[in-house]
């Protein structure tokens, strides 16, 4: 266990620079988004007031209030989130492959450490999970700061206050990264962890059997994912909704646990017996 935490600490240090860059990038671009949305809105307000001599209430009737929702729905806000998601997905592969293909073949050192090799797997997995949660947590803090900036820069009479909860409820992407119900949170992040574990196993298959392993790994990813969503597909097609949604979810959960356990078992076996430097 001690070695797991040492490895985790080591992996977290390695990802830290990337996380700081992503957080900085997200915050700056989203802040630019606040100013662009605000400027667009205030330009419209100015035009209405100058051209038509509209009062505040007439302006509000015509173009509505300015709420943070306008910022959230812009590419300036969604774009960085998408880039962070892509970066984490990329890092799922990088976290393994750089140990083989970096300037020095660090995987030698890692595999020769006097510790269970599966600790490498769990340390890398936990790093991905913590990196994701850190980005999500940072996003929530960034939203609060961005809302504050909005309040400072847009005259109060045009601002409609929305809470973070409302923002999340009305935005599909935010709802996906911060589900507003505990069950949804567990399902989304559970599915995410399962996906990473399946991808890790596929990577280890490739690293153990090279080209042949890449084909087996690809097949493994497809089969493992299909297996998990099979109850949903069967219930919709062959069984014509014979099972309740709750029942289908339970079966999916059970299959998810089986695939997770199987995937970890296979990864341990590959790391112990089949891996090649």
């Amino acid at each position, binding site marked *: 266990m001690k070695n797991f935490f040492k490895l985790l600490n*080591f992996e977290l240090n390695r990802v830290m620079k990337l996380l700081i860059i992503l957080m900085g990038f997200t915050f700056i671009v989203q802040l630019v988004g606040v100013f662009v949305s605000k400027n667009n809105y205030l330009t419209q307000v100015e035009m209405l007031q100058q051209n038509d001599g509209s009062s505040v209430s007439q302006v509000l009737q015509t173009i509505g209030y300015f709420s943070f929702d306008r910022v959230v729905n812009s590419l300036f806000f969604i774009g960085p989130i998408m880039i962070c998601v892509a970066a984490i997905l990329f890092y799922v592969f990088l976290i393994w492959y750089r140990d083989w293909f970096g300037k*020095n073949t660090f995987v030698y050192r890692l*595999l020769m450490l*006097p510790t269970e090799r599966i600790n490498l797997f769990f340390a890398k997995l936990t790093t991905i999970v913590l990196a994701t949660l850190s980005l999500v947590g940072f996003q929530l803090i960034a939203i609060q700061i961005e809302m504050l900036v909005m309040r400072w820069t847009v005259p109060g009479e045009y601002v409609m206050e929305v809470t973070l909860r409302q923002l999340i409820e009305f935005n599909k992407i935010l709802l996906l990264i911060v589900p507003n119900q505990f069950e949804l949170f567990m399902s989304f992040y559970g599915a995410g962890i399962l996906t990473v574990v399946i991808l890790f196993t596929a990577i280890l298959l490739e690293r153990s059997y090279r080209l042949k392993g890449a084909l087996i790994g690809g097949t493994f990813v497809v089969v493992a994912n299909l297996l998990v969503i099979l109850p949903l597909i069967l219930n919709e097609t062959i069984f014509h909704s014979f099972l309740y949604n709750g029942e289908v979810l339970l079966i999916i959960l059970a299959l998810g646990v089986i695939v997770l356990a199987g995937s970890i078992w296979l990864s341990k076996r590959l790391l112990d017996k089949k891996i090649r*430097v």
Partner: protein
Amino acid sequence: MIEVKDIVKRFGRKTVLDQVSFTAEKGQITCLIGVNGMGKTTIMNAIMKLTPLQAGEILVDGEKVKKDTFEKIVFIPDATIMLPHFTIEMAMEFMKDFYQNWNQRRADDMLAFFKLNRKDKIASLSKGNTAKVNLLLGLAVDADYILMDEPFSGIDIFSREQIAEVFTSHLIEDRGVLITTHEIGDIEHLIDKVVLLNDGKIQKEFMTEDVRESEGKSVIDVLREVFVQ
């Protein structure tokens, strides 16, 4: 004792190691010799479980290699295996963190002996100094067995002399060393045992002292007989 028993390794259809068996004892320097591509490095990798075998087994002190074995056997490959942005000090810290058998005093001694600067980044080191750092990180673990893959490969004469000096020092004493090298001249007088590998098989295994005494031949004489024929 490291026991390599009937190991078979194939890469695709090519058999690189065919029923290879030999032993490397504690307190002896065993040299694995063969031309390039004969599977010397593969044997080292197999001992450290860095490549799977098709058949055979490898035992260290009568046991299969498991996580605790890595405290008593270290492998010093011919390439750098530490992160390039690490300084020598960070690399030592890393090793100290994971190895119970890490001997900091010995590491400091070697640092002074090799005249290395602990603040230097690994990526900025010359080939000779990189080899010395590799050696330092391996030898500072109080391990019973040390595997070295081509420790003299591609490095300058003065570094070679310094590294060769290590073999006669207390750093190696009482340990079991398994070494592969082309530069046999550098350490010929230090080798206790030679294992000749040819075409994936053990061609000959002999104690250097015996050959010197009974046949009056040096290691190079025997190599010439085997490989030039």
